Each structure stands twice: as C-alpha cells, then as structure tokens.
C-alpha cells in the first residue's frame, strides 16, 4: 500500500516531516511499543474461545470476553490486525524516510471507508423501510385476498348447496314426471282399450243393422215391386174408368147446362114477378101507413076537439056565458070554486 502511493502526495508530508531526529526516534520507540502490545493482544484474543475458563491471569478481560459475542471478537481481531498493519507501515516509513504519509493515507482511507459504510447503512435502512412498507402492502393485499378468498369459498359453498338442492329437486321432478307420464300412458292405454272395445261393439251392432237393413230393403223392394204391379193393373182400370167417366160427365154437363139455361130463364121471369109484387106491396104498405096516419090524426083531432069542448063548457059555466046566463041571473052564485 505504501509503495503504491502516488508521487504528488509525497511533497506534502515532506513539508511536515521536519522532525528533528530525536523526536523521530521517540515516536519510533512509541510505535514499536504499540506494535508489541497489539501483537500481545492478538495472541490473547485468538485463543480466547478455548482458554477462557482455564486462563485466570486476565480475569477482567476474560469476563469482558465472555460477554462479547463471537462476531464482536472477530471484529475486534480484525480491527487489531488493521491497527497493527497501519502502525507497522508507518513505522517502516518513518524508519525509511522519516515521514508518516502512510498514516495520513490510512486515516483518509478509513474516513472514506467509514463514509462508505455510513452510506451503506443508510441505504440499507432505506431498503429496510422500503421492505417493511412492501411487506405491509403485501400483508394488506394478502389479507384482502384472504377475505376475497373466504367470500369466494362461501359463494362456492352456497352455490354447491344450491346445486345440491337443484339436483335433488330435479331428481324429484324427474321422478314425478316419469311417474305422471307412466300413469298417463297407462290411463290412455286403458281409455284406448275401452274405446276400442266400444267401437268394436258399435261396429258389430252397425254390421248387424246393416245386415238387417239389407234384408229389409230386399223385402221392401220385393213388396214394392208387387205393389207396383198391382198399381199398374189398377191404373189401367182407372184409366178406362176415367175415359168412361169423362164421357159420362161431359154428357151430364151438357144436360146441366141446358137445365141451367132453363132455370135462368125461369129466374128472370120470377125476378120480374118479384119486382112487381114488391112494388105492389110497398104501395100497399104506404097506403096503409097513410091511412093509419090519417086515422091517428083524426083521433088526435077528435081528442083535441073534445078537450077544447070540455074546457070551453067549463069556462062557460064558470064565467056564466051563453046558456048559463040564466043560472047566474036566477041565484047569483055562478061559480063557487074560483
């Protein structure tokens, strides 16, 4: 390391390396001492895992060692090694050239390492945070998904139930339908057989009827033929009779016409006679009526005349007129009731 140090860096330590010879010797001495101590410490630490319990010469250190964990020991060991190397390098440089540039370089390097380390830590921290966040997100998503999964499971269970139910129902339906259909088929078959037998019977009876009809028909036909013959005979007879009758009737009509003419003539004369008689009767009636009227009038006149005469006689007596003047003059009492 020291050997690879760049040349421009040498100038600076030379300015500061104006150690007097004395100082330089003392520093070298101190450094040699530190190296010794460090190597001793290295010896102590290295066998530590095997000799902690047996070595009672360093109780304090061994107590501390007990508490330090394996990693820490390792780290301390490496640190000690590093310090030893640095001091060794510096001592060699001092002895060679009287400068301590290696120390400065070592410090710089250490500083850089520390920064680098810090950066690493920070980036690690960030990474951890990020990881945590992601973990958290992951957890959330996981939870969510679990809930979803549960829901889905529930849904599946529900659907399965439904499916089961549907299957059961369908089975029942199928069973019922099958039964129903079977029964219907059975019923229809039965009906068909009944109607078939009925139709068969009908057919039989109709057949019988047809036979009977045919028989009747032939009988009737025979009878009618016979009857027709009879009728033809009768017709012939009637035709003859008709001709004869027509002749006879025509003769009769002739006679009757003649009689009617004669009767009409008689009627004419009788009507004339009747008219004349009627006229005579009416005249006679009128005359009689007139006579009756006259008689009634005469009677009425007679009655009226008698009434007037009776009245006038009464008047004359009561008023002492005409022939009754005598009575008045004689006694002076002409009328008592007045």
């Amino acid at each position: 390391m020291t050997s690879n140090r760049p040349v421009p860096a040498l100038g600076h330590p030379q300015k500061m390396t104006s150690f007097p010879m004395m100082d330089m010797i003392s520093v070298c001495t101190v450094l040699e001492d530190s190296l010794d101590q460090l190597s001793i410490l290295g010896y102590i630490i290295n066998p530590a895992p095997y000799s902690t319990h047996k070595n009672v010469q360093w109780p304090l250190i061994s107590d501390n060692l007990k508490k330090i964990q394996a990693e820490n020991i390792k780290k301390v060991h490496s640190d000690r090694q590093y310090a030893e190397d640095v001091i060794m390098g510096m001592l060699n440089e001092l002895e060679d050239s009287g400068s301590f540039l290696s120390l400065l370089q070592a410090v710089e390097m250490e500083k850089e390492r520390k920064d680098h380390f810090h950066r690493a830590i920070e980036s690690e921290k960030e990474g951890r945070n990020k990881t945590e966040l992601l973990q958290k997100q992951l957890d959330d998503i996981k939870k969510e998904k679990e809930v979803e999964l549960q829901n889905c499971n529930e849904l599946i269970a529900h659907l399965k139930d439904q499916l089961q139910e549907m299957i059961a129902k369908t089975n029942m339906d199928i069973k019922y339908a099958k039964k129903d259909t079977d029964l219907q088929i059975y019923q229809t078959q039965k009906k068909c057989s009944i109607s078939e037998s009925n139709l068969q019977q009908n057919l039989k009876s109709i057949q019988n009827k047809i036979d009977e009809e045919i028989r009747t028909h032939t009988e009737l036909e025979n009878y009618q033929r016979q009857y027709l013959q009879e009728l033809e005979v009768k017709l012939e007879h009637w035709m003859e009779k008709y001709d004869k009758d027509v002749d006879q009737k025509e003769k009769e009509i002739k006679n009757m016409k003649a009689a009617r003419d004669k009767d009409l003539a008689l009627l004419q004369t009788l009507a004339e006679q009747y008219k004349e008689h009627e006229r005579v009767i009416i005249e006679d009636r009128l005359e009689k009526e007139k006579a009756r009227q006259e008689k009634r009038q005469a009677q009425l006149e007679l009655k009226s005349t008698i009434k007037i005469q009776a009245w006038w006689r009464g008047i004359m007596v009561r008023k002492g007129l005409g022939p009754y003047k005598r009575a008045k003059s004689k006694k002076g009492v002409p009328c008592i009731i007045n």
Partner: protein
Amino acid sequence: MAGEKETAEAIVSDLQKKITEAFDVFDHENNQTVDVREIGTIIRSLGCCPTEGELHDMLAEVEEEEPTGYIRFEKFLPMMTKVLLERRYRPIPEDVLLRAFEVLDESKKGYLTKDELVKYMSEEGEPFTQEETEEMISAAVDPDRNVVLYKDYISAMIIED
C-alpha cells in the same frame, strides 16, 4: 098524525059544504034533488072540466036504477067528494090546450079560421050546440081578421079565470 087527520077532515067538510052550496043552486023544489041535465053545470061550477063522455060515466054512477030524470043529493055528495079529493077532471092546463089547438091547426099557421073552428066544434067530438058555438065565436074570433089566434085566446081566458 092526529093533526093531519083533523086537517083532512076539515078539508073534506069544506069540500062538502061547497058541493052542498052548488047543489042547492039547482035544487029548485028544495027536496034534495036536481034535474039530471043540471048535473054537468054543477060539476063544472065546482071547478071540474070533464068531457061529455066522462060526465055520462059520472051520471051513470049517481042515477037511480030506474031513471027518474032527477039526481038525489045523498048519492051525488059522496061521488063528488071523492072526485074532488082525488082531484080528477082538473081543468086542462094551458100547454095541453095549446097543443090541442096546434093539432087542429094542421098547416101550423098559428091560427084557425072561423070556419075551421065552427066545423071542428059543431061537427066533431062532442058537438057544441048552436048557442055554445056562437058564444065561443064571440069570445075567440078576432073581429078584424076573422081568425082565431088561439094562443092569445087561451091566455086571455086563463088570465080572466
């Protein structure tokens, strides 16, 4: 009832008194008889107007079995009382009389000529004597027109009555 009977009796006795008075006028010999010919006059003077036929029927009722020509008061009184009580032969009412004249007035002129009147009265029915006819003519005939305006004539006679 008793009152009515009394009034009835009173009426009867009143009538009988009148009948007696009328009879007495013609009882010339005061022996309760009158000439058969005077009976008509007596009945008419008592306010009745019988026809000659009816008079004849009444006479037949009161005459003796053997006609003597005289009528006795004791027979006449009950017959006449009955006639008056039953109000038979009442004077002929004006309208009936008018209708009788109208019957004679055949052509409905509203009057009779003097000849018509004389003919009917002296020839028809129970004919008037000459004297009676003349008396009627003098009372009924309108001297100017020589006709009988019978409506006026009847009215005049009835009013005078």
